[in-house]
Protein backbone atom coordinates (compact mmCIF):
# COMPACT_ATOMS: atom_id res chain seq x y z
CA UNK A 1 0.00 0.00 0.00
CA UNK A 2 1.03 3.62 -0.36
CA UNK A 3 2.71 5.90 2.13
CA UNK A 4 0.36 8.90 1.88
CA UNK A 5 -1.11 9.78 5.29
CA UNK A 6 -4.74 8.99 6.05
CA UNK A 7 -6.17 12.50 5.70
CA UNK A 8 -4.67 12.94 2.23
CA UNK A 9 -5.99 9.53 1.19
CA UNK A 10 -9.42 10.61 2.43
CA UNK A 11 -9.18 13.81 0.38
CA UNK A 12 -8.26 11.79 -2.70
CA UNK A 13 -11.19 9.49 -2.13
CA UNK A 14 -13.60 12.39 -1.59
CA UNK A 15 -12.45 14.73 -4.36
CA UNK A 16 -14.67 14.95 -7.43
CA UNK A 17 -12.05 17.13 -9.07
CA UNK A 18 -8.36 17.76 -8.45
CA UNK A 19 -5.98 20.03 -10.33
CA UNK A 20 -3.26 18.20 -12.22
CA UNK A 21 -0.32 20.45 -13.06
CA UNK A 22 2.15 19.43 -15.76
CA UNK A 23 5.18 21.24 -17.10
CA UNK A 24 5.16 22.34 -20.71
CA UNK A 25 8.27 22.09 -22.90
CA UNK A 26 8.82 25.85 -22.43
CA UNK A 27 8.92 25.35 -18.66
CA UNK A 28 5.50 26.82 -17.93
CA UNK A 29 3.32 25.03 -15.38
CA UNK A 30 -0.14 24.27 -16.76
CA UNK A 31 -3.09 23.08 -14.70
CA UNK A 32 -5.94 20.77 -15.73
CA UNK A 33 -8.92 19.93 -13.52
CA UNK A 34 -9.52 16.15 -13.64
CA UNK A 35 -11.22 13.47 -11.58
CA UNK A 36 -8.63 11.84 -9.28
CA UNK A 37 -9.04 8.09 -8.83
CA UNK A 38 -7.18 6.62 -5.87
CA UNK A 39 -6.47 2.92 -5.51
CA UNK A 40 -4.62 3.21 -2.19
CA UNK A 41 -1.19 3.38 -3.80
CA UNK A 42 -1.31 5.50 -6.91
CA UNK A 43 -3.44 8.30 -8.29
CA UNK A 44 -5.10 7.65 -11.63
CA UNK A 45 -6.66 10.12 -14.01
CA UNK A 46 -7.92 9.66 -17.54
CA UNK A 47 -7.79 12.00 -20.48
CA UNK A 48 -9.72 11.90 -23.72
CA UNK A 49 -7.60 12.08 -26.85
CA UNK A 50 -9.68 15.17 -27.64
CA UNK A 51 -7.82 17.00 -24.89
CA UNK A 52 -4.48 15.32 -25.36
CA UNK A 53 -2.01 18.20 -24.97
CA UNK A 54 -1.55 17.25 -21.34
CA UNK A 55 -0.58 13.75 -22.45
CA UNK A 56 2.07 15.16 -24.76
CA UNK A 57 3.41 17.29 -21.90
CA UNK A 58 3.50 14.33 -19.52
CA UNK A 59 5.28 12.12 -22.03
CA UNK A 60 8.02 14.75 -22.35
CA UNK A 61 8.17 15.56 -18.65
CA UNK A 62 6.51 13.21 -16.14
CA UNK A 63 6.88 15.55 -13.15
CA UNK A 64 3.46 16.62 -11.90
CA UNK A 65 1.57 18.01 -8.94
CA UNK A 66 -1.96 17.07 -7.93
CA UNK A 67 -3.65 19.77 -5.91
CA UNK A 68 -6.69 19.04 -3.75
CA UNK A 69 -7.90 22.57 -3.27
CA UNK A 70 -11.65 23.00 -3.68
CA UNK A 71 -13.70 22.33 -0.52
CA UNK A 72 -16.88 22.21 -2.63
CA UNK A 73 -15.41 19.39 -4.74
CA UNK A 74 -14.26 17.53 -1.60
CA UNK A 75 -17.57 17.19 0.18
CA UNK A 76 -17.08 20.34 2.23
CA UNK A 77 -13.73 19.35 3.75
CA UNK A 78 -11.60 22.38 4.53
CA UNK A 79 -8.21 20.63 4.62
CA UNK A 80 -6.05 20.79 1.51
CA UNK A 81 -3.09 18.96 0.03
CA UNK A 82 -0.69 19.00 -2.86
CA UNK A 83 1.02 15.81 -4.02
CA UNK A 84 4.08 15.84 -6.24
CA UNK A 85 4.85 12.74 -8.22
CA UNK A 86 5.85 11.10 -11.46
CA UNK A 87 3.26 10.40 -14.13
CA UNK A 88 3.17 7.54 -16.59
CA UNK A 89 0.84 7.34 -19.56
CA UNK A 90 -0.84 3.98 -20.07
CA UNK A 91 -2.48 3.56 -23.44
CA UNK A 92 -2.13 0.06 -24.92
CA UNK A 93 -5.68 0.49 -26.24
CA UNK A 94 -7.22 3.96 -25.97
CA UNK A 95 -10.60 2.44 -26.80
CA UNK A 96 -10.82 0.11 -23.84
CA UNK A 97 -7.84 -0.17 -21.49
CA UNK A 98 -8.94 2.82 -19.35
CA UNK A 99 -12.17 0.99 -18.54
CA UNK A 100 -10.47 -0.95 -15.75
CA UNK A 101 -10.79 2.31 -13.77
CA UNK A 102 -14.56 2.43 -14.23
CA UNK A 103 -15.37 1.12 -10.70
CA UNK A 104 -13.35 3.96 -9.16
CA UNK A 105 -14.74 6.48 -11.64
CA UNK A 106 -18.33 5.31 -11.10
CA UNK A 107 -18.03 5.86 -7.38
CA UNK A 108 -17.43 9.56 -7.99
CA UNK A 109 -19.46 10.15 -11.12
CA UNK A 110 -22.33 7.63 -11.30
CA UNK A 111 -23.54 9.23 -14.54
CA UNK A 112 -20.46 7.86 -16.33
CA UNK A 113 -22.39 4.68 -17.10
CA UNK A 114 -25.11 6.68 -18.82
CA UNK A 115 -22.55 8.67 -20.79
CA UNK A 116 -20.71 5.50 -21.75
CA UNK A 117 -24.04 4.13 -23.01
CA UNK A 118 -24.15 7.16 -25.30
CA UNK A 119 -20.69 6.42 -26.66
CA UNK A 120 -22.09 6.60 -30.18
CA UNK A 121 -22.78 10.30 -29.61
CA UNK A 122 -19.31 11.07 -28.23
CA UNK A 123 -17.01 8.50 -29.82
CA UNK A 124 -13.76 10.44 -29.49
CA UNK A 125 -14.43 11.45 -25.90
CA UNK A 126 -14.27 7.80 -24.87
CA UNK A 127 -10.98 7.11 -26.62
CA UNK A 128 -8.88 7.75 -23.51
CA UNK A 129 -5.42 7.41 -22.05
CA UNK A 130 -4.74 6.60 -18.42
CA UNK A 131 -2.44 8.81 -16.36
CA UNK A 132 -0.84 6.90 -13.49
CA UNK A 133 0.81 9.07 -10.84
CA UNK A 134 3.22 7.69 -8.27
CA UNK A 135 3.26 10.06 -5.26
CA UNK A 136 6.74 11.15 -4.13
CA UNK A 137 6.13 14.11 -1.80
CA UNK A 138 3.07 15.67 -0.26
CA UNK A 139 2.20 18.87 1.54
CA UNK A 140 -0.86 18.93 3.79
CA UNK A 141 -2.68 21.90 5.29
CA UNK A 142 -5.00 20.57 8.03
CA UNK A 143 -6.86 23.87 8.24
CA UNK A 144 -6.58 24.55 4.52
CA UNK A 145 -4.98 27.94 5.14
CA UNK A 146 -1.76 28.96 3.40
CA UNK A 147 -0.95 31.21 6.38
CA UNK A 148 -0.09 28.03 8.29
CA UNK A 149 3.01 26.04 7.31
CA UNK A 150 2.05 22.72 5.73
CA UNK A 151 2.94 19.28 7.05
CA UNK A 152 5.37 17.61 4.69
CA UNK A 153 5.52 13.91 3.83
CA UNK A 154 7.75 11.99 1.49
CA UNK A 155 7.53 8.50 0.08
Amino acid at each position, binding site marked *: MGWLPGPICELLEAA*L*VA*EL*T*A*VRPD*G*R*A*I*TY*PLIPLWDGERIYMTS*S*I*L*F*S*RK*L*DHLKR*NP*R*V*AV*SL*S*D*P*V*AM*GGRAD*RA*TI*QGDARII*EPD*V*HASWKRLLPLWRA*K*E*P*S*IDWFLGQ*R*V*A*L*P*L*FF*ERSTIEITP*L*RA*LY*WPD*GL*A*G*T*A*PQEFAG
Partner: protein
Amino acid sequence: MRGGADPAGALRRLASYPHHALTWVDERGYPQSVVVRTTIDAAAGIVRIDRPAGVRVPPARELSLTGSHIRPMPGYGYDERRHLTVWGLPEADDDLGRLVVRPVAVWGWDEAETPFFEYAERSVGQSKRYLTRLSADLHRVVRPRLDLGWLILRATRLPFLSATLVPILLGIAVAAAAGSFDPPSALLTIVGGCAVQLGLNVANDVFDTQSGADDFNVNPTPYSGGSRVIQYGLVSFRAMALLAAALVAAGAAIGLVLLAARGSAALLLIGLVGLVVGIAYTAPPLRLAYHGLGELAVGFGFGPLMLLGAYVVQTGGAISASAVWASLPVAILVALILYVNEIPDRPADAAAGKRTLPVRFGRGPVLRGYRLAAGATFGIIVMGAGLGLLPLTALVAVVAYPAARGVASGLARAYDQPYALMPVMASQIQLHLVVGGLLVLAFVASAATTALVPGARLFLSW
Protein backbone atom coordinates in the same frame (compact mmCIF):
# COMPACT_ATOMS: atom_id res chain seq x y z
CA MET B 1 -9.77 31.01 -24.23
CA ARG B 2 -6.19 30.82 -25.44
CA GLY B 3 -2.96 32.00 -23.91
CA GLY B 4 -2.38 35.74 -24.14
CA ALA B 5 -6.04 36.76 -24.42
CA ASP B 6 -7.22 39.77 -22.37
CA PRO B 7 -5.49 39.30 -19.00
CA ALA B 8 -7.42 42.23 -17.45
CA GLY B 9 -10.75 40.66 -18.37
CA ALA B 10 -9.45 37.34 -17.15
CA LEU B 11 -8.61 38.87 -13.78
CA ARG B 12 -12.20 40.00 -13.36
CA ARG B 13 -13.27 36.43 -14.01
CA LEU B 14 -10.59 34.99 -11.76
CA ALA B 15 -11.87 37.20 -8.95
CA SER B 16 -15.20 35.37 -9.13
CA TYR B 17 -13.60 32.05 -8.12
CA PRO B 18 -13.74 31.41 -4.37
CA HIS B 19 -10.15 30.18 -4.14
CA HIS B 20 -6.97 30.48 -6.15
CA ALA B 21 -4.09 28.02 -6.38
CA LEU B 22 -0.66 29.57 -6.84
CA THR B 23 1.61 27.30 -8.88
CA TRP B 24 5.25 27.36 -9.91
CA VAL B 25 7.93 24.89 -10.91
CA ASP B 26 10.23 24.20 -7.94
CA GLU B 27 14.01 23.75 -7.85
CA ARG B 28 13.66 19.99 -8.52
CA GLY B 29 11.57 20.61 -11.61
CA TYR B 30 8.25 19.57 -10.06
CA PRO B 31 5.19 21.81 -10.09
CA GLN B 32 4.09 23.03 -6.66
CA SER B 33 0.63 24.41 -5.84
CA VAL B 34 -0.62 26.26 -2.78
CA VAL B 35 -4.04 27.78 -2.25
CA VAL B 36 -3.33 31.39 -1.39
CA ARG B 37 -5.13 34.51 -0.28
CA THR B 38 -5.29 36.99 -3.16
CA THR B 39 -6.32 40.58 -3.76
CA ILE B 40 -7.21 41.09 -7.40
CA ASP B 41 -7.06 44.57 -8.91
CA ALA B 42 -8.45 43.94 -12.37
CA ALA B 43 -8.33 47.63 -13.35
CA ALA B 44 -4.61 47.79 -12.60
CA GLY B 45 -4.08 44.34 -14.11
CA ILE B 46 -2.34 42.92 -11.05
CA VAL B 47 -2.85 40.30 -8.36
CA ARG B 48 -1.44 40.72 -4.85
CA ILE B 49 -0.73 37.39 -3.18
CA ASP B 50 -0.12 36.78 0.51
CA ARG B 51 3.06 34.75 0.75
CA PRO B 52 2.26 31.22 1.90
CA ALA B 53 3.83 30.12 5.18
CA GLY B 54 6.45 27.38 5.22
CA VAL B 55 6.74 27.19 1.43
CA ARG B 56 9.36 29.02 -0.56
CA VAL B 57 8.08 30.76 -3.68
CA PRO B 58 11.14 31.17 -5.92
CA PRO B 59 11.93 34.70 -7.07
CA ALA B 60 11.98 35.66 -10.74
CA ARG B 61 10.18 32.48 -11.80
CA GLU B 62 6.89 32.45 -13.64
CA LEU B 63 3.85 31.91 -11.44
CA SER B 64 0.36 30.85 -12.35
CA LEU B 65 -2.91 31.36 -10.52
CA THR B 66 -5.74 28.93 -11.14
CA GLY B 67 -9.38 29.08 -10.19
CA SER B 68 -11.58 26.07 -10.76
CA HIS B 69 -15.23 25.39 -10.08
CA ILE B 70 -17.73 22.57 -10.26
CA ARG B 71 -21.19 22.04 -8.78
CA PRO B 72 -21.44 18.60 -7.19
CA MET B 73 -24.62 16.69 -8.00
CA PRO B 74 -24.96 13.76 -5.59
CA GLY B 75 -25.86 10.52 -7.36
CA TYR B 76 -24.89 11.98 -10.73
CA GLY B 77 -21.48 13.61 -10.65
CA TYR B 78 -21.09 17.33 -11.21
CA ASP B 79 -21.74 20.17 -13.63
CA GLU B 80 -21.03 23.89 -14.03
CA ARG B 81 -17.44 23.13 -14.99
CA ARG B 82 -15.12 26.06 -15.41
CA HIS B 83 -11.49 26.84 -14.77
CA LEU B 84 -9.14 29.70 -15.47
CA THR B 85 -5.38 30.10 -15.23
CA VAL B 86 -3.34 33.29 -15.59
CA TRP B 87 0.45 33.44 -15.79
CA GLY B 88 2.92 36.19 -14.97
CA LEU B 89 6.30 36.96 -13.44
CA PRO B 90 6.38 38.29 -9.89
CA GLU B 91 7.19 41.98 -9.62
CA ALA B 92 8.65 43.72 -6.56
CA ASP B 93 6.71 42.92 -3.38
CA ASP B 94 4.23 45.56 -2.26
CA ASP B 95 4.62 47.44 1.03
CA LEU B 96 2.77 44.67 2.88
CA GLY B 97 5.29 42.11 1.65
CA ARG B 98 2.82 40.54 -0.75
CA LEU B 99 3.82 39.05 -4.07
CA VAL B 100 2.63 41.17 -6.97
CA VAL B 101 1.96 39.42 -10.26
CA ARG B 102 0.93 41.07 -13.51
CA PRO B 103 -0.60 38.32 -15.69
CA VAL B 104 0.45 38.20 -19.32
CA ALA B 105 -1.29 35.05 -20.50
CA VAL B 106 -4.65 33.39 -19.89
CA TRP B 107 -6.15 29.98 -20.52
CA GLY B 108 -9.36 28.34 -19.40
CA TRP B 109 -12.77 26.96 -20.23
CA ASP B 110 -16.27 27.73 -19.03
CA GLU B 111 -18.93 25.32 -20.22
CA ALA B 112 -21.57 28.02 -19.80
CA GLU B 113 -19.80 29.96 -22.57
CA THR B 114 -18.47 27.15 -24.73
CA PRO B 115 -20.74 24.13 -24.41
CA PHE B 116 -18.94 20.84 -23.91
CA PHE B 117 -20.00 19.48 -27.31
CA GLU B 118 -18.56 22.51 -29.09
CA TYR B 119 -15.40 22.40 -26.96
CA ALA B 120 -14.99 18.74 -27.90
CA GLU B 121 -15.69 19.42 -31.57
CA ARG B 122 -13.09 22.16 -31.69
CA SER B 123 -10.59 19.64 -30.34
CA VAL B 124 -11.09 16.97 -33.01
CA GLY B 125 -7.94 18.10 -34.85
CA GLN B 126 -5.95 17.74 -31.63
CA SER B 127 -7.17 14.16 -31.22
CA LYS B 128 -6.24 13.26 -34.81
CA ARG B 129 -2.73 14.63 -34.40
CA TYR B 130 -2.37 12.73 -31.14
CA LEU B 131 -3.43 9.44 -32.72
CA THR B 132 -0.96 10.02 -35.55
CA ARG B 133 1.87 10.43 -33.03
CA LEU B 134 0.63 7.48 -30.97
CA SER B 135 0.54 5.31 -34.08
CA ALA B 136 4.16 6.24 -34.78
CA ASP B 137 5.15 5.48 -31.17
CA LEU B 138 3.38 2.10 -31.14
CA HIS B 139 4.36 1.14 -34.70
CA ARG B 140 0.77 0.32 -35.56
CA VAL B 141 -2.19 2.33 -36.76
CA VAL B 142 -4.35 3.53 -33.87
CA ARG B 143 -7.82 4.66 -34.90
CA PRO B 144 -10.89 5.55 -32.88
CA ARG B 145 -13.47 2.78 -32.89
CA LEU B 146 -17.15 2.16 -32.37
CA ASP B 147 -18.91 -1.18 -32.16
CA LEU B 148 -20.16 -2.16 -35.62
CA GLY B 149 -23.83 -1.72 -34.74
CA TRP B 150 -23.30 1.76 -33.37
CA LEU B 151 -21.06 2.62 -36.30
CA ILE B 152 -23.73 1.61 -38.83
CA LEU B 153 -26.34 3.52 -36.87
CA ARG B 154 -24.16 6.62 -36.82
CA ALA B 155 -22.75 6.45 -40.36
CA THR B 156 -26.14 5.92 -42.01
CA ARG B 157 -28.07 8.10 -39.54
CA LEU B 158 -30.49 5.20 -39.18
CA PRO B 159 -32.89 6.93 -36.73
CA PHE B 160 -33.85 9.36 -39.50
CA LEU B 161 -35.53 6.55 -41.45
CA SER B 162 -38.87 7.89 -40.28
CA ALA B 163 -38.52 10.38 -43.14
CA THR B 164 -38.87 7.45 -45.55
CA LEU B 165 -41.15 5.16 -43.58
CA VAL B 166 -43.86 7.79 -43.13
CA PRO B 167 -44.45 8.59 -46.84
CA ILE B 168 -44.07 4.96 -47.95
CA LEU B 169 -46.46 3.60 -45.34
CA LEU B 170 -48.84 6.43 -46.11
CA GLY B 171 -48.68 5.66 -49.84
CA ILE B 172 -49.41 2.00 -49.12
CA ALA B 173 -52.27 2.95 -46.78
CA VAL B 174 -53.81 5.35 -49.32
CA ALA B 175 -53.65 2.60 -51.94
CA ALA B 176 -55.19 0.10 -49.49
CA ALA B 177 -58.02 2.54 -48.79
CA ALA B 178 -58.58 2.64 -52.54
CA GLY B 179 -58.71 -1.16 -52.65
CA SER B 180 -55.14 -2.01 -53.74
CA PHE B 181 -52.85 -3.84 -51.34
CA ASP B 182 -50.10 -6.31 -52.21
CA PRO B 183 -48.01 -7.25 -49.13
CA PRO B 184 -44.86 -8.57 -50.92
CA SER B 185 -44.47 -5.49 -53.08
CA ALA B 186 -45.28 -3.28 -50.10
CA LEU B 187 -42.45 -4.91 -48.17
CA LEU B 188 -40.04 -4.52 -51.08
CA THR B 189 -41.00 -0.87 -51.40
CA ILE B 190 -40.21 -0.27 -47.74
CA VAL B 191 -36.82 -2.02 -47.98
CA GLY B 192 -35.91 -0.24 -51.23
CA GLY B 193 -36.99 3.15 -49.95
CA CYS B 194 -34.98 2.70 -46.76
CA ALA B 195 -31.88 1.70 -48.77
CA VAL B 196 -32.19 4.80 -50.92
CA GLN B 197 -32.57 7.11 -47.94
CA LEU B 198 -29.64 5.60 -46.06
CA GLY B 199 -27.59 5.86 -49.24
CA LEU B 200 -28.50 9.51 -49.62
CA ASN B 201 -27.67 10.19 -45.96
CA VAL B 202 -24.22 8.71 -46.48
CA ALA B 203 -23.79 10.48 -49.84
CA ASN B 204 -24.69 13.77 -48.14
CA ASP B 205 -21.80 13.25 -45.70
CA VAL B 206 -19.46 12.45 -48.56
CA PHE B 207 -20.32 15.61 -50.49
CA ASP B 208 -20.42 17.82 -47.39
CA THR B 209 -16.96 16.54 -46.47
CA GLN B 210 -15.78 17.28 -49.98
CA SER B 211 -17.14 20.83 -49.82
CA GLY B 212 -15.83 21.40 -46.30
CA ALA B 213 -19.30 22.08 -44.81
CA ASP B 214 -18.98 19.32 -42.20
CA ASP B 215 -15.40 20.28 -41.38
CA PHE B 216 -16.38 23.92 -40.77
CA ASN B 217 -19.15 22.87 -38.41
CA VAL B 218 -18.11 23.11 -34.75
CA ASN B 219 -21.69 22.93 -33.46
CA PRO B 220 -22.92 19.59 -34.73
CA THR B 221 -25.81 18.01 -32.88
CA PRO B 222 -27.36 14.55 -33.16
CA TYR B 223 -29.79 16.14 -35.65
CA SER B 224 -27.50 18.31 -37.72
CA GLY B 225 -23.97 18.60 -39.00
CA GLY B 226 -23.85 15.14 -40.57
CA SER B 227 -22.78 11.83 -39.07
CA ARG B 228 -19.14 13.06 -38.72
CA VAL B 229 -17.76 9.55 -38.99
CA ILE B 230 -15.31 10.81 -41.63
CA GLN B 231 -14.29 13.82 -39.54
CA TYR B 232 -13.70 11.60 -36.49
CA GLY B 233 -11.67 9.06 -38.46
CA LEU B 234 -14.17 6.28 -37.71
CA VAL B 235 -14.79 5.52 -41.40
CA SER B 236 -12.70 6.58 -44.37
CA PHE B 237 -14.01 8.92 -47.04
CA ARG B 238 -13.60 6.15 -49.62
CA ALA B 239 -15.53 3.63 -47.51
CA MET B 240 -18.38 6.10 -47.06
CA ALA B 241 -18.46 6.81 -50.80
CA LEU B 242 -18.62 3.08 -51.51
CA LEU B 243 -21.33 2.57 -48.88
CA ALA B 244 -23.42 5.37 -50.39
CA ALA B 245 -23.08 3.87 -53.85
CA ALA B 246 -23.92 0.37 -52.59
CA LEU B 247 -27.04 1.49 -50.71
CA VAL B 248 -28.34 3.61 -53.58
CA ALA B 249 -27.60 0.75 -55.99
CA ALA B 250 -29.49 -1.68 -53.74
CA GLY B 251 -32.44 0.70 -53.60
CA ALA B 252 -32.32 1.16 -57.39
CA ALA B 253 -32.16 -2.61 -57.93
CA ILE B 254 -35.26 -3.11 -55.80
CA GLY B 255 -36.89 -0.31 -57.76
CA LEU B 256 -36.11 -2.16 -61.01
CA VAL B 257 -37.57 -5.38 -59.60
CA LEU B 258 -40.75 -3.52 -58.68
CA LEU B 259 -40.80 -1.86 -62.07
CA ALA B 260 -40.46 -5.20 -63.80
CA ALA B 261 -43.18 -6.71 -61.63
CA ARG B 262 -45.62 -3.81 -62.05
CA GLY B 263 -44.66 -2.55 -65.50
CA SER B 264 -45.77 0.97 -64.62
CA ALA B 265 -44.55 3.95 -66.67
CA ALA B 266 -45.50 6.21 -63.76
CA LEU B 267 -43.24 4.22 -61.44
CA LEU B 268 -40.37 4.49 -63.94
CA LEU B 269 -40.85 8.25 -64.13
CA ILE B 270 -41.02 8.58 -60.34
CA GLY B 271 -37.89 6.49 -59.96
CA LEU B 272 -35.94 8.50 -62.49
CA VAL B 273 -37.01 11.84 -61.00
CA GLY B 274 -36.14 10.54 -57.53
CA LEU B 275 -32.71 9.47 -58.72
CA VAL B 276 -32.02 12.87 -60.28
CA VAL B 277 -33.28 14.81 -57.25
CA GLY B 278 -31.38 12.55 -54.85
CA ILE B 279 -28.09 12.95 -56.67
CA ALA B 280 -28.60 16.65 -57.45
CA TYR B 281 -29.28 17.37 -53.78
CA THR B 282 -25.61 17.67 -52.86
CA ALA B 283 -23.71 16.49 -55.94
CA PRO B 284 -22.41 18.87 -58.58
CA PRO B 285 -23.36 20.46 -60.90
CA LEU B 286 -26.81 21.29 -59.48
CA ARG B 287 -26.05 20.95 -55.74
CA LEU B 288 -29.62 21.97 -54.84
CA ALA B 289 -28.85 22.10 -51.11
CA TYR B 290 -26.20 24.73 -51.79
CA HIS B 291 -28.63 27.06 -53.58
CA GLY B 292 -31.54 27.28 -51.16
CA LEU B 293 -33.42 24.50 -52.94
CA GLY B 294 -32.51 21.67 -50.58
CA GLU B 295 -35.63 22.09 -48.48
CA LEU B 296 -37.82 21.95 -51.59
CA ALA B 297 -35.93 18.92 -52.91
CA VAL B 298 -36.27 17.06 -49.60
CA GLY B 299 -39.98 17.93 -49.35
CA PHE B 300 -40.55 16.77 -52.91
CA GLY B 301 -38.46 13.62 -52.55
CA PHE B 302 -39.70 12.50 -49.14
CA GLY B 303 -43.25 13.68 -49.83
CA PRO B 304 -44.91 13.24 -53.24
CA LEU B 305 -42.15 11.14 -54.83
CA MET B 306 -41.87 8.53 -52.06
CA LEU B 307 -45.59 8.45 -51.37
CA LEU B 308 -46.67 8.27 -54.99
CA GLY B 309 -43.95 5.72 -55.71
CA ALA B 310 -45.28 3.46 -52.97
CA TYR B 311 -48.83 4.16 -54.11
CA VAL B 312 -48.31 3.24 -57.77
CA VAL B 313 -46.49 0.04 -56.81
CA GLN B 314 -49.73 -1.01 -55.14
CA THR B 315 -52.13 0.27 -57.78
CA GLY B 316 -50.05 -0.81 -60.77
CA GLY B 317 -49.75 2.71 -62.14
CA ALA B 318 -52.85 4.70 -61.33
CA ILE B 319 -52.34 7.98 -59.45
CA SER B 320 -55.17 9.58 -57.49
CA ALA B 321 -55.79 13.12 -56.29
CA SER B 322 -56.18 11.67 -52.81
CA ALA B 323 -52.61 10.29 -52.89
CA VAL B 324 -51.20 13.59 -54.15
CA TRP B 325 -53.06 15.54 -51.47
CA ALA B 326 -51.98 13.16 -48.70
CA SER B 327 -48.36 13.70 -49.68
CA LEU B 328 -48.47 17.46 -49.13
CA PRO B 329 -48.56 17.65 -45.30
CA VAL B 330 -45.84 15.01 -45.10
CA ALA B 331 -43.75 16.89 -47.66
CA ILE B 332 -43.98 20.15 -45.73
CA LEU B 333 -43.21 18.55 -42.38
CA VAL B 334 -40.18 16.65 -43.67
CA ALA B 335 -38.87 19.80 -45.37
CA LEU B 336 -39.32 21.56 -42.03
CA ILE B 337 -37.16 18.91 -40.33
CA LEU B 338 -34.32 19.95 -42.62
CA TYR B 339 -35.21 23.65 -42.29
CA VAL B 340 -35.07 23.47 -38.48
CA ASN B 341 -31.87 21.41 -38.51
CA GLU B 342 -30.23 23.96 -40.78
CA ILE B 343 -30.68 26.75 -38.26
CA PRO B 344 -27.75 25.72 -36.00
CA ASP B 345 -25.70 24.75 -39.06
CA ARG B 346 -25.93 28.15 -40.72
CA PRO B 347 -22.45 29.51 -39.81
CA ALA B 348 -20.77 26.35 -41.14
CA ASP B 349 -23.08 26.17 -44.15
CA ALA B 350 -22.40 29.83 -44.97
CA ALA B 351 -18.65 29.25 -44.65
CA ALA B 352 -18.90 26.36 -47.11
CA GLY B 353 -21.07 28.34 -49.53
CA LYS B 354 -24.14 26.25 -48.75
CA ARG B 355 -26.90 28.86 -49.17
CA THR B 356 -29.72 27.16 -47.28
CA LEU B 357 -32.85 29.15 -46.47
CA PRO B 358 -31.69 29.92 -42.89
CA VAL B 359 -28.39 31.14 -44.40
CA ARG B 360 -30.15 33.29 -47.00
CA PHE B 361 -32.71 34.87 -44.68
CA GLY B 362 -32.53 36.42 -41.23
CA ARG B 363 -34.09 35.27 -38.01
CA GLY B 364 -37.46 37.01 -38.54
CA PRO B 365 -38.21 35.64 -42.02
CA VAL B 366 -36.99 32.17 -41.03
CA LEU B 367 -39.30 32.06 -38.00
CA ARG B 368 -42.23 33.43 -40.01
CA GLY B 369 -41.47 30.87 -42.70
CA TYR B 370 -41.73 28.06 -40.16
CA ARG B 371 -45.04 29.30 -38.75
CA LEU B 372 -46.50 29.75 -42.22
CA ALA B 373 -45.43 26.31 -43.44
CA ALA B 374 -46.51 24.52 -40.26
CA GLY B 375 -49.88 26.29 -40.33
CA ALA B 376 -50.30 25.36 -44.00
CA THR B 377 -49.74 21.70 -43.11
CA PHE B 378 -52.77 21.58 -40.86
CA GLY B 379 -54.78 23.78 -43.24
CA ILE B 380 -54.13 21.26 -46.03
CA ILE B 381 -55.30 18.38 -43.81
CA VAL B 382 -58.55 20.14 -42.88
CA MET B 383 -59.13 21.24 -46.46
CA GLY B 384 -58.36 17.75 -47.75
CA ALA B 385 -60.95 16.22 -45.44
CA GLY B 386 -63.45 18.89 -46.48
CA LEU B 387 -62.83 18.26 -50.19
CA GLY B 388 -63.19 14.51 -49.75
CA LEU B 389 -59.54 13.88 -50.64
CA LEU B 390 -58.61 12.67 -47.15
CA PRO B 391 -60.79 10.51 -44.91
CA LEU B 392 -62.57 12.33 -42.12
CA THR B 393 -60.44 10.37 -39.68
CA ALA B 394 -57.46 12.38 -40.96
CA LEU B 395 -58.79 15.33 -38.98
CA VAL B 396 -57.40 13.64 -35.86
CA ALA B 397 -53.93 14.75 -37.06
CA VAL B 398 -54.89 18.29 -36.10
CA VAL B 399 -54.29 17.31 -32.45
CA ALA B 400 -50.59 17.75 -33.27
CA TYR B 401 -51.02 21.45 -34.02
CA PRO B 402 -49.96 22.56 -30.50
CA ALA B 403 -46.72 20.61 -31.00
CA ALA B 404 -46.02 22.70 -34.10
CA ARG B 405 -46.61 25.85 -32.07
CA GLY B 406 -44.19 24.46 -29.50
CA VAL B 407 -41.53 24.03 -32.16
CA ALA B 408 -42.13 27.59 -33.38
CA SER B 409 -41.75 29.06 -29.90
CA GLY B 410 -38.71 26.84 -29.24
CA LEU B 411 -37.07 28.17 -32.38
CA ALA B 412 -37.73 31.75 -31.34
CA ARG B 413 -36.33 31.05 -27.87
CA ALA B 414 -33.14 29.21 -28.85
CA TYR B 415 -32.46 30.46 -32.38
CA ASP B 416 -28.81 31.26 -31.69
CA GLN B 417 -28.08 28.42 -29.25
CA PRO B 418 -27.27 25.24 -31.17
CA TYR B 419 -27.46 22.92 -28.19
CA ALA B 420 -30.62 24.47 -26.78
CA LEU B 421 -32.14 23.79 -30.21
CA MET B 422 -31.63 20.04 -29.85
CA PRO B 423 -34.99 19.34 -28.17
CA VAL B 424 -36.68 21.61 -30.73
CA MET B 425 -35.14 19.61 -33.57
CA ALA B 426 -36.28 16.40 -31.90
CA SER B 427 -39.80 17.82 -31.55
CA GLN B 428 -39.96 18.61 -35.28
CA ILE B 429 -38.97 15.03 -36.12
CA GLN B 430 -41.65 13.76 -33.74
CA LEU B 431 -44.19 16.14 -35.30
CA HIS B 432 -43.54 14.65 -38.74
CA LEU B 433 -43.77 11.16 -37.33
CA VAL B 434 -46.97 11.81 -35.36
CA VAL B 435 -48.84 13.64 -38.13
CA GLY B 436 -47.66 11.13 -40.72
CA GLY B 437 -48.54 8.22 -38.43
CA LEU B 438 -52.02 9.61 -37.75
CA LEU B 439 -52.62 10.05 -41.49
CA VAL B 440 -51.53 6.43 -42.06
CA LEU B 441 -53.95 5.29 -39.34
CA ALA B 442 -56.68 7.45 -40.86
CA PHE B 443 -56.35 5.68 -44.21
CA VAL B 444 -56.02 2.26 -42.56
CA ALA B 445 -59.23 2.98 -40.66
CA SER B 446 -60.88 3.92 -43.94
CA ALA B 447 -59.66 0.71 -45.60
CA ALA B 448 -60.83 -1.36 -42.62
CA THR B 449 -64.23 0.33 -42.58
CA THR B 450 -64.74 -0.36 -46.28
CA ALA B 451 -63.66 -3.98 -45.80
CA LEU B 452 -65.91 -4.55 -42.81
CA VAL B 453 -68.90 -2.54 -43.97
CA PRO B 454 -69.16 -2.78 -47.74
CA GLY B 455 -70.24 0.52 -49.23
CA ALA B 456 -69.33 2.54 -46.15
CA ARG B 457 -66.85 5.37 -46.78
CA LEU B 458 -65.08 7.77 -44.46
CA PHE B 459 -64.63 10.36 -47.21
CA LEU B 460 -66.94 13.28 -47.75
CA SER B 461 -68.31 13.25 -51.25
CA TRP B 462 -69.66 16.26 -53.15
